[in-house]
Structure formats: C-alpha cells, structure tokens
C-alpha cells in the first residue's frame, strides 16, 4: 500500500462547453491535512465528486485508495472513505441514532460504536430526536459523524464549516486534527483561505477549474512576493525626511506624522535596527491571507 491516497492526473471535466475542472494534477498523501480553496464555482465540489466517483472525468485519470472510484468495484475503497457534502442533507424523518445506524450498516461497521461517535461530535443528547428538528450546526455534526464511520483513511469534507458558529468550528477542527494525526488524509474545501490558517498543512488554490497554487501557507506567502511594509509614527516626520534624506530614503509619508516603507522580508531586521529612538508605534504589516488569496485569484502570480 502506498501512502498516496488520492492521485489525479490531467483531470478535466466539461459541462457543455464550460470546463468545471481543467487539466488538474493533484496528489494527496496519508496523514496530510489539505485545504482546497477557491471562490464559489471554482470547481471544488466537482473535484471532490470526481474523487467519489459521482462524476466521471471527461479526460484524465483519478485513483482513490488505489482504485478508480467511478467503477462499481470501488466498493472496497468507499468503505474507507468519509464524505461530508456541502449543505449536508439527511433524512428528516429518521432520528440521529437511526441515521448513523443506517449508514454504519451500509459501510459494514458495527452499530455498537455509534454511541461513542455521537458523543464525540457532541450530539449524544439529541440522538433520539428526529433530524428534522435539528439546527444547522447539529445536522453538520451528524454529517461529520457519518463521515467518521469506520475510521476512514480518506476524508473529503466539502465546505464543512459554513454556517457553524466559532465555538463549533474550533471543536470541528480539533476532531479533524486528531484524525490526521492518526494517519488519515483530510481534504477540506473552503472559499476563504483565512479560515483555514493554522488548521491545514497544505493549501491548494483553485480558480476557474485550474490549480493556481499548491503549498503551505508560508510557502504561498513567499510565492506571492507581496512585500512586508513597515510603518511608524515620527514627530515632525516631514521635516526629518527633508533634513536627513539619506537615512529616510524609500520612506514615504502616509498621513500626518506617519511614514511607511516597503521592503524585502530579509531586510526587515536591518531596517528596524537603523531606526532612531524617536520612532513610535512601529508596525510590520504583512499581507493578510485575504490579500494573498486575492492576489492568486487575480492571476498575479
């Protein structure tokens, strides 16, 4: 068994004339927690559906856990796969416990472990109420519980945290971290890069069906080459710049008494060392993830 959980080679999926996914290469390994980021309609869900075999690629090949997911024989691979669809839909007339039991049986998992699973996602008290009475957050947790059935080796979560409050979101990420520590591959899709910070090892950015970036968030920062800016407050800033133009070369006034300098990451320390004691409120402004994301989406890189 290789540790390559998902391998996609030159995958294209066309809907009519439009390419939802175009010439996509992707390798996801066991133990990795990967964020798939793109705006709505970038092709994230199509990509995940191709990994599940729900949608067949127009061109290219998809292997999940060593099998082609679109072939009926992929039943074995699917038993080791967990999927949480975007806006998970569950049968409203069944209770939480019944829903989980139904899916556990389909996956040939003992139903006895379900109670612990419901406990883990925090809906044990509501296990015997109908899903129709659940709040969005509870449905999402039950959805996560069904994805966790049978300790899957690959988890595909399509926008799992939309509509969850921050506290829930944290507990959600904790569960995901535990899983990836146990050696499962976790793929999380999201439309906001900032949200994934600190939760994923690697980010794949998609735009209009194409992969525009692939790497760690720090790596993406380097790749984006958006320079950090240093900003400080100085009394009589304009006069200082005029009098000592050598020392303040490159600095530009932003507003009354505030100066700003854009420099390379490697120069930050030397610039700070050279500052006079009278400089106040020194700030280092690095590009936010949203700016980074916007830069990738614009195709600037």
């Amino acid at each position, binding site marked *: 068994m290789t540790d390559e959980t998902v391998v996609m080679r030159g995958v294209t999926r066309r809907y009519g004339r439009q390419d939802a996914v175009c010439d996509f290469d992707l390798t996801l390994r066991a133990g990795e927690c990967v964020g798939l980021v793109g705006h709505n309609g970038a092709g994230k869900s199509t990509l995940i*559906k191709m990994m*599940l*075999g*729900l*949608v*067949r690629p127009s061109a290219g090949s998809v292997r999940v856990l060593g099998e082609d997911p679109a072939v*009926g024989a992929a*039943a*074995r691979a*699917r*038993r080791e*796969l967990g*999927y949480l*669809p975007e*806006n*998970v*839909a*569950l*049968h409203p*007339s*069944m209770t939480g416990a*019944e829903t989980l039991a*139904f*899916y556990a*049986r*389909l*996956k*040939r998992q003992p139903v006895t472990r379900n109670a612990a699973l419901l406990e883990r996602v925090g809906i044990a008290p509501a296990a015997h109420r109908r899903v129709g009475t659940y709040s969005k957050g509870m449905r999402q947790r039950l959805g996560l519980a*069904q994805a966790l059935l049978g300790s899957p080796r690959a988890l595909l979560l399509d926008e799992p945290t939309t509509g969850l409050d921050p506290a829930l979101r944290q507990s959600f990420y904790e569960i995901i971290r535990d899983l990836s520590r146990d050696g499962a591959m976790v793929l999380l899709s999201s439309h906001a890069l900032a949200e994934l910070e600190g939760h994923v090892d690697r980010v794949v950015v998609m735009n209009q069906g194409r992969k525009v970036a692939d790497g760690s968030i720090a790596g993406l920062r380097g790749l984006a080459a958006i320079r950090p800016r240093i900003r400080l407050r100085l009394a009589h800033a304009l006069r200082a710049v005029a009098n000592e133009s050598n020392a303040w070369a490159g600095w530009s006034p932003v507003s009354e008494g505030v100066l700003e300098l854009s420099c390379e990451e490697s120069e930050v320390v030397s610039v700070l060392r050279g500052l006079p004691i009278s400089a106040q409120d020194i700030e280092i402004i690095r590009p936010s993830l949203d700016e980074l994301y916007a830069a990738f989406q614009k195709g600037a890189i």
Partner: protein
Amino acid sequence: MRQVIIIAGKELRDGMRNRWVLATTALLAALALTLAFLGAAPTGTVKVGALAVTIVSLSSLTIFLVPLIALLLSYDAIVGEVDRGTMALLLAYPVTRWQIILGKFAGHLGIMAFATVAGYGIAGLALQWAGNEDRGAWTAFTIMVASSVLLGGVFIAIGYLVSTLVRDRGTAGGIAVGVWLFFVLLYDMALLGVLVADQGRTVTAGGLNLLLLLNPADAYRLLNLTATPDVGGFAGVAGLGARTGLGPAVLLGALAAWVVVPLAAATALFARRQI
C-alpha cells in the same frame, strides 16, 4: 444483497413514519369494506356469492387506486433524493446504483403489499364472518390480491423510470399523473374508439390481444375478471375474456414483464446519470 435489504428496510421504515402505510391500508380497507357490504347487498338470494361480487367491484377499484398510490409512492424516489442531496451522500457509500433501485423497489413493494393484503384481507374476512360462506371464490380472491400487488409493482417500476428520466421533482409528479391518466382512463377509451371506427377490418383478434397486453391495467382486468368461471360468469366482460384466448399465464407474464422492463430501464438510466 445485504445492501439491498438495508435500503429496503429504510424505505419500509420511512413508509411507517410518514404514515403512508397507515393511510393506504386504511383507505383500501375502508373502500373494500364499503364495496363488500353495500356492493354485495343487491345480490340477495341470487346464485352468485357475495365474495365473487366483491372481487369484481374490488378489482375495478384497484385499477384506479393502486396505480395512483404506486406512482405517488415512487415518482419522487430518485429525483427527490438527488434534489435534496441525500443521493450524493448515499452514492459515496459502498452501494451500487442497481442496489439502490432494487432496494427501494423492494421497500415500496413491501408497503404496497402490506396495504393491499391487510386492506382487502379485512374485507374478505369480514364477509366470511358475516356468514357469506363462499369457499370457491377464495382462490379468485387470493389471485385478485396477489395480482393487485403485482399491479402496484408495475406502477412503482414505471414511477422509478419517470423519476430517473427527469431532473425536476415537479416534472416527475406531472408525468406520473399523466401516466396514470393514460393507462387507467385514456388507453381504454382510445382502444374502444379505434375498435368502433375500425369495425374489425384491420384490428384482428390477435392485434387486440397485443393491445390489451400493452396496458398493464388491462392485463390485470382480464386476469381477474376471467380467472375463475365463478367470477367470470358474473362479470360482463367474461365473453371478451373467453374469446381473447389470453390465459392467466400470459397475463401474469405480461404483468411481470411490465415490472422488469421499466425497472431495468430505470437502472440503466440511473447508472449513467451524473449526480
């Protein structure tokens, strides 16, 4: 097989939960009891048994009601789940698409079978208790109940075919009503019109047989109105039945084919559908 049973079990439980089973059983029982006691009253002391009369009127009721119930039960089965998004999740599990269709069919047929057997059975037993001893008609009654379930199966299969053909639940519902109208009302009227206009010149007896077999509702009607001489003697159409030369085996075969063909077509279409 295991997966089929799991899905069938879920459909059965759904049927219990949303009162489908209760409602259809109660409806069929109420109508059957009404027909059994009110419909049998005019037989009086005539030689025809009350149960035989009930069979004739019940099978006419079945032709209208059972296809409608079956279509209402089934038209939503695929398109509804795709629409709500539950199908994508289900297909991510180790289940093949034919197992889903077969499992749903088994579950829905189970609901139909329970409603028919219980609903009509109550009427049959009530007649028996009321003192209308009529042992000979019990065979015909059993055939009637069994073929009613089979007729339900036919329209469940057609409902699935409709459900896999379209992309919208509303459209599926509309087509289902259209299918019901066509097979239950329009087909016979059109057939009658053709026969009258044709005056037996081009439509031969063989052609008529084929046309009757092409409508599952007609196959069911012929099967029940000519099954036994006891019932046949009372049902006016017996003459037609005798002359068609369509034996029970052929009629049952036609009904079975009406289950298998739409179900196979639905499975093939569903296998190719992108969710």
